[in-house]
């Protein structure tokens, strides 16, 4: 009897077609050996492979190519007519640090204090944030989680969007975040006088300079005492930056501020620097290129910074900077949990003058290189982390469907709360009757 019930349920489920999909889905990731066969593989670093196979085993890509044998026991996923891309890397988010934008109790990205590089994004990442599955099922597998506010906001962390604790999610890169003092207005509502704006910026810059000078002192003391220097958490967090071992991520947008930030960085001979945001980067692209400072540009879908600017500057900005010789990665930069739109930001940059190939690199191998994790992420190559996705078309095209996502070899369930609501409500039952 029991067996018959199970059987009839199974038959029913198969007959229902679409709904069998949701019933069969498990919310858990699955690991093992997988063979993704017959796909067009955009490796990013080694060209496009037609009718190729990717073997995933023990979290890694163990083989890529057209002449690959499927290991015994591998789960074969037929990818005929489909495309494989490395997981997309978003260069700046608050994923896991925020649940509901307007509710401070659910927001952990903005600690009290102007100089707090010692507070770490990684410790506050909520692995179960609703937005994490929402983001990863779109092929965005990795994100730089960035504390906000103040001058030194904290330490950002690169995470893969799968795991049950932050250490499982950690993708091997941290950076100290600095907000370079703004001399521009924050918006039309910002009615401060130009004098007031300048005073505020000067005061902030003085504080940053003072902090840096102290950090230099601390570095000397620390070296002289072989690490027996007094506990000073702010300066301790800046030590690896001073020593060129850790990246300083500088958020800066206005042209004058970018120029000032370039000079600031050069004067202090800071070795590892990335600029983030760079809304007016196109205005000073040559300076950025000359200074060899890479950028994480975005959001691309944004308004021009000045009323007098051409309407499409934000769309064209990444391409214009790249053309001038700047290394450009991208970020969706959306504080409202739409990091899933990263491919569309890249697509807009490609529509407005950039090449699709370069835009694709800007969400894969370029950020991987900037973050020093190109040995693991950013391309489809043997030996790299199996962090990739399968889709039915160009990943920047709006209607493209992502069918499979792997993060460090884990096959990710293609569900999020947003798909679950779709499954429940597309054909609601009961309808309008009781």
């Amino acid at each position, binding site marked *: 009897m029991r067996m018959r019930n199970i059987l009839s349920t199974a038959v029913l489920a198969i007959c229902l077609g679409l709904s069998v999909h949701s019933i069969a889905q498990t919310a858990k990731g699955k690991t093992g050996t997988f063979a993704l066969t017959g796909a067009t593989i955009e490796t990013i670093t080694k060209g496009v492979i037609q009718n190729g196979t990717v073997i995933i085993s023990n979290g890694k890509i163990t083989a890529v190519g057209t002449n690959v044998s499927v290991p015994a026991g591998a789960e074969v996923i037929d990818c005929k007519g489909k495309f494989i891309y490395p997981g997309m890397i978003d260069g700046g988010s608050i994923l896991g640090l925020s649940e509901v934008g307007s509710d401070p109790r659910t927001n952990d990205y903005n600690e009290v204090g102007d100089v707090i590089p010692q507070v770490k994004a990684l410790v506050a990442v909520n692995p179960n944030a609703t937005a994490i599955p929402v983001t990863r099922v779109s092929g965005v597998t990795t994100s730089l989680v960035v504390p906000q506010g103040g001058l030194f906001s904290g330490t950002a962390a690169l995470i893969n969007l799968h795991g049950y604790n932050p250490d499982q999610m950690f993708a091997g890169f941290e950076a100290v975040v600095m907000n370079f003092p703004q001399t521009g207005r924050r918006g039309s509502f*910002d009615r401060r006088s130009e004098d007031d704006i300048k005073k505020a910026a000067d005061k902030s810059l003085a504080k940053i300079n003072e902090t840096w000078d102290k950090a230099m002192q601390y570095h000397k003391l620390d070296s002289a005492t072989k690490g027996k220097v007094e506990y000073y958490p702010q300066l301790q967090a800046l030590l690896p930056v001073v020593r060129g071992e850790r990246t300083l991520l500088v958020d800066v947008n206005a042209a004058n501020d970018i120029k000032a930030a370039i000079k600031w960085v050069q004067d202090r001979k800071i070795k590892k620097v990335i600029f983030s945001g760079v809304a007016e980067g196109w205005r000073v692209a040559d300076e950025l290129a000359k200074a060899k400072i890479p950028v994480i540009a975005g959001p691309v879908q944004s308004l021009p910074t000045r009323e007098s600017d051409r309407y499409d500057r934000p769309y064209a900005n990444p391409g214009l900077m790249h053309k001038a010789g700047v290394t450009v990665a991208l970020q969706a930069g959306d504080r409202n949990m739409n990091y899933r739109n990263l491919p569309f930001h890249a697509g807009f940059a490609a529509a407005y003058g950039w090449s699709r190939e370069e835009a694709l690199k800007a969400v894969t191998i370029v950020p991987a290189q900037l973050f020093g994790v190109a040995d693991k992420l950013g391309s489809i190559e043997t030996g790299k982390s199996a962090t990739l996705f399968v889709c039915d078309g160009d990943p920047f095209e709006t209607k493209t469907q992502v069918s499979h996502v792997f993060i460090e070899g884990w096959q990710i369930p293609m569900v999020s709360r947003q798909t679950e609501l779709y499954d429940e409500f597309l054909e609601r039952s009961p309808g309008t009757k009781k």
Partner: protein
Amino acid sequence: MKQLYTALLLLFVSVAFAQTERGNMLIKGGNVLTITRGNMENTDILVRDGKIVQIGKNLTAPAGFQTVDATGMFVMPGIIDAHSHIAIDAVNEATSPVTAEVFTGDAVNPFQVSIYRALAGGVTAVHSMHGSANAIGGQCETLKLRWGVKDPERLKMDGAPRTIKFALGENPTRVHGSGNGIVPRTRMGVEFVIREAFAQGKAYMEAWDKYNKEKTQKGFRGAPPAYNYRLETMADIIRGNIIIHCHSYRADEIYMLLGVLKDYGVKKVVFQHVNEGFKVAPELAEFGAMASVFSDWWAYKFEVYYSTAYNAAILVRNGVTTSINSDDAELMRHLYHEAAKSQKYGQLTDDEALAMITINPAKQLGIESRVGSLEVGKEADIAIFKNHPLSVYTVPMFTIVDGIVRFNREKDADDQRLFVDPKATIDVTLYQNLGHNHDNCMEGAEYETARLFGTFNKTEQ
């Protein structure tokens, strides 16, 4: 006396019409996406006096007609944004939970560069709405983006039906309940505020109807009821003369308003944002209510936490007339892309997706007989795209309003301002919010903003 009014009205209307520029043109060789009558390759559109007069192959331009070469491009109706706050200098009259007596049409600003930027995204008409601070907000204005005109009246779409903003949930309860300590502080209070306004409006309407009926009788000596524009507006809603556009998110509050409207026999309602519309899609369809949604915005406040990007698809599949709106000067620049997201989330067809930014918002504004599709007799509001408008790689090339090219990418100059503030310093960057501002609806009612940056004084875009 009545004849005099009619004569004056006619004079006014003719003056207004004389002022509106209407163009003659031939759009050659495009892939024409009519929305309502299918697609036609390599097809021409002839526009005379601002209206589409012919759609067909190998048409020739009469002498003096401008020719737009759309060979290889995609020609579709101009995009209509059913939820916008551009081109107006005031958004919220946040002084009372009910402000049915005010109009955004009184604050139209034709100089906002956001108008041009919207044109550059293929948008030809917008619904410039009152904000969401009040349970019953002000009346809204439907504008055509005739960038370049300096008279605010000439931006208005003459003859577009009247509309009014309602708002449910967190915004009115935050502004009035939490902010001012008056009803509504809860969704219970919102229901009561709206119900009370309808009750008063109905009583007012009945008093006037009674007076108007009795005054024609011989020997009538009574006085007219006291005139009250707020109640007059409520009465006009009950009479079916005004379309309600209701800011809403949660399923329960949407259902609540349907109940109130049923009690007052009000049928014309469009729910705005309506993030949880998918949960009550059968009820919306049964009522005949329409929905104007974001493609994918969520998580910015608690009432949008349980959202899904599949909302539009679920609503469409349940038979609800649905549009995709922006509520945002940035998002409105790529509504074609927002519509395409309904193909990612729910696999809507090209026609269904494009209808959500053309004919459906036209229906929601009551202007579908004039715009929203490419048909002979309709106004020549047309957007021309380099690639298919649902492709991420597309670029709007021309945007045409009333047969006049208002945006031409090839001839686009960098600085498009019509008004240059002589006090503005060039090298100070107007550093806008780079992400989306999800509380545009709360413009003018945001004490947080004022607290951070001093007096909130919106005098420019």
